[in-house]
């Protein structure tokens, strides 16, 4: 019963919200060896980090939790740079992975995002509706990564349980 898909709630990630002028943002993240993604709603991945271009003058950096202290130091989010603002938001999100051969079915139920490759390529990363709330969706080789506001995580888990099985 249910779909051939594995849904897993992730532990902490290190997450930083970056807003401002593109050249200033590029300068701030350069020490990490990262550059800004070229296409809107795409992500640049490096060493487990994903830098997502998710809005006009707006990026989100997702990185493994063990990098958090290093990133807090190197990005200096409390530094009030004139043309760029970085806010530490690791705790504001909960992440889920959706993998397996029917991951697309799960996503088609969860979200109105048009995931055809021409609209959402292999490095796609975009905010969309996710079970009625705002959620960030990244494509991965084996499926998807979804990030939602933490306070909704229990609700999203309940939705996932429901749609991936026969339970009501």
């Amino acid at each position, binding site marked *: *019963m*249910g*779909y051939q898909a594995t849904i897993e709630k992730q532990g*902490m990630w290190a997450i930083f*919200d970056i*807003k*401002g002028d593109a050249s200033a943002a590029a300068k701030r993240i350069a020490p990490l060896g990262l550059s800004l993604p070229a296409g809107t709603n795409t992500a640049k991945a490096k060493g487990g980090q994903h830098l997502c271009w998710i809005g006009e003058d707006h990026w989100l950096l997702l990185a493994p939790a063990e990098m958090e202290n290093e990133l807090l130091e190197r990005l200096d989010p409390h530094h*009030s740079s*004139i*043309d760029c*603002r970085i*806010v*530490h*938001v*690791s*705790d*504001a*999100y909960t992440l889920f992975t959706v993998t397996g051969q029917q991951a697309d*079915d799960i996503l*088609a*139920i969860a*979200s*109105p*995002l*048009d995931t*055809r490759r021409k*609209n959402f390529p292999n490095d796609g990363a975009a905010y969309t509706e996710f*079970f*009625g*709330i705002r959620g960030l969706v990244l494509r991965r080789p084996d499926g998807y990564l979804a990030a939602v*506001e*933490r*306070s*909704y*995580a*229990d*609700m999203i888990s*309940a*939705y996932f349980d*429901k*749609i991936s*099985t*026969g*339970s*009501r």
Partner: protein
Amino acid sequence: MTHNPFRSETGGRIDRNSPIEFEFNGRIYTGYQGDTLASALLANGVFLTARSFKYHRPRGVMGAGVEEPSCLVELLGADAGGNHAATTVRLRPSLRAKSVNCWPSPNFDLMSINQLFARFLPAGFYYKTFMWPNWHLFEPSIRQAAGLATAPNDQIPDQHFETRYWYGDALVVGGGPCGLLAALIASRSGARVMIVDDQPHPGGYLRASQTEIDSKPAMEWVAAVIAELDANPEVTRLQDATAWGYRESNLLMITERSPAESHVFQRGWKARAGQVILATGAIERNLVFKNNDLPGIMLASAVQTYLHEFGVIPGRRAMIFTNNSSAYALVHDLLAHDLQARNPQAAGTVIAGIIDSRPADAIGAEKDGLEIPIYAAHQITAAHGGKHLRTLSIRAEDGSIKLVDCDLLAVSGGWNPAVHLFSQARGTLAYDDELASFVPDKPTQRLACVGAAAGKMNLASALADTVSTITASLGEDGFEIPAFTMPISAASPDYHLHPLWHVDGMKPGDKAFVDIQNDVTLDDIGLAMREGFDTVEHVKRYTTAGMGIDQGKTGNVNVIGNIAEASAKSPGDIGTTTFRSPFTPVDFGSIAGHRNGATVLPFRHTPITQWNRDHGAVMYEAGARWQRPGYFPIEGGDMQDAINTEAEAVRYGVGVYDGSPLGKFDISGRDAAAFIDLLYTNDFGDLEIGMGRYGIMLTDDGMILDDGVTFKLAENHYLMSTSTGFADLVYRHMDYLSQVECSGWQVWITPVTSQWCNATICGPKARDVVAALGTSIDMRNEAFPFMAMRDGIVADMPARVCRVSFTGEVSFEINVWPRHAEAMWRRIMEIGAPFGIMPVGSETSHVLRVEKGFLSLGHEVDATADPYDLGMGWIMSRTKMHAIGRRSVDIRRSSGKPRRELVGLIPETNGELVPEGAPITPNGERVASEGFVSACVWSVVNKQAIALGLLTNGRARIGKTIIIRDRERMIKAVVTKPCFHDPKGARLRG
């Protein structure tokens, strides 16, 4: 051998090796896998299957699909549902069904007495009769008499509804020849294609005909097309699925009734395509003559379907009544089936003749080879029979009447292109004189109609037209169609029709139905028009024609034709009523999908939610979908006792509450200070770093949007807190201003509500508890004053502590990252235990803020109040005329009209609480109110019930007595200042 007396021995596409027992109206019958409920009933000789809606006349099956106007059933059991057409219910083991509209049974129906009173139940009867005192008094008994089905209660075990999205290049609706061809061409071009067919198996009308394509039976061509489509991974083929709604931007709403996945009961698709191809075919319409609703009278196309699909011939002696050429195919098909041989249990089905309203010289090749009587230029004036058709009165051109016996009459009044979806898409319709029906005219979305849906009634030319249409429209989207061999269909007689909106020679009072399901007769149309309801929309509403579950699929064009004839206009001038979704009835579940049970509404949790539950808190939503503890029940006490205990802890000891849901925004950028000044009505310019200030923001029309405290973290860097319930609205307001009106400004707004959790420790012993937790922050009042904010370490965790107070007591908001929140909370409860700390729920927070007269949005602030009304004129800066909402407040107040002002109230109730929202009226009279009670609580410090309210000219009435009306009860209350505790605020600054 199953006793199916009206089933031919061979033929049909049912699986004769799989008999299925089912129950109908309490009796057990047998049909076969592949049957519908309707075909199985007909095969069993069950012809009287329903009673009509208004007159409770005997009715049987008339159609074979979604057009069925007559035989509605209610399904019983776990997958129960009401008002299904029996023609669309697939037979399955353990199916149980019963007729609607009849009690106790269709054979013995008590309400059929309505027929005797028919002349008292004309069109508009309900409007005229049940107007006084109001309709709702009568509705329940009328509903029972009408007998429409009841809503199901049970849930389907182990299955659920699902909804999902689909995007593609081409979406084809209809699995008939033109739909299949369109899907085939589209799929070969490399497009992503969906084809939706409402039948369980593809083929459309080809399944009910002897047509050949490429010199082979047409169904062989269908099988080859399906094989190719199914092999293409870019093609999604849905069978037994209805596209029932055509929304904006080429979005189709589809309900799939038998998904392949066993855990899905029904699936709702929201499918959006670059272009839509409507190959929805055409629906046969009825003919209007006396008693045209008797069981035994069926649509000719339905009889063909029963013959070809189900091997059922529902009569022994058949007549045809037509005004067009298409019904002749049925005669050819029936004869070809060698009736004598296939109906051995009876004398066989004899075709007694064809009654054709067209003159002899208008009848063309369709009659070639037929050796049965054809009554050209004849009409049926009446059908006769009690519960089944027995005899027809046939009228010749000269008016002479002849009686003919038969038990099956196949009627065809011509074909209506199924323009429902086209019209839902806001496409316009045109009247086609040759078809005597409406055809698609100008589309407003990217769609094309092909085949009979486009009014193309000849298969060969319809197929050719489909190819050119699809090639052109896909070409516009850059798809190339590879070389393609046209399927060649056998030549067929041209479709030809003479409109016949009703037969001649009927008398007033004859029951000749234009809308079978709603029991609307030709007389009713005439009555409506005589009473002045002479447009089609008025006729519909006055007579209810077209309002049934079938939405008048077989009858609407006859209604229009008859209005046109009565008013000497063309049907094209009359026009149609609006085609609305759904095309066929839809289960709500297929729209709601997985949103049921616990996920009907969104909900939010904090890291403390589980602790609250473990400690017995009564949880409910308290704004913005946050589940919060209302109160913590105490042993041997009721809810009020629990609230009093919590409130006393805060007033006299120490309490703690989870303040995490409070909205929080990080605001920075070169112009952040100017932005804050624009938002709030009061000045923030002189705010020092590390300090916070209470502010009120207004909407442009001068109403209070939100209140909250904003801290200055650094130059041009602020942390704004908002009320829980309005955080999203405030964000929208700020984001709009920053992007649209202040687009040149540098302001960055980042929601950080979920990046920070807080435990707010409040009460006279709060400082002692924080100190006991251990902190790096200098907690002395002079070092850490009221409204200040400090970063440091608390209980070995990084924390940001704010001194604000929503309770009136000294309070410390301990903000930590959510990863630390539960640990911090547990430490506070543990370290605070010796101080008698208590967790406090939202009920107690409400009590504490009412005692202090602090505002609550949604209580005192209800989108009519401005700050002056609330006694907060001081918050309206004298210099900031440009602050949002300021201008509107000034304009409104310049009228000098009396305003409702915030006051305190002490009701004389001996402690009983007054319901919130209770009106205050002048002298307690039953007249327009002069205010209302916005909140009422038991005050632990005052030991009495206290209230806040908004009262006209309230501040001038302090000390006076007013009267609250709680329905018929009058409650006196003394007006006071809106603060009942520590009016100078010494305690919260302490």
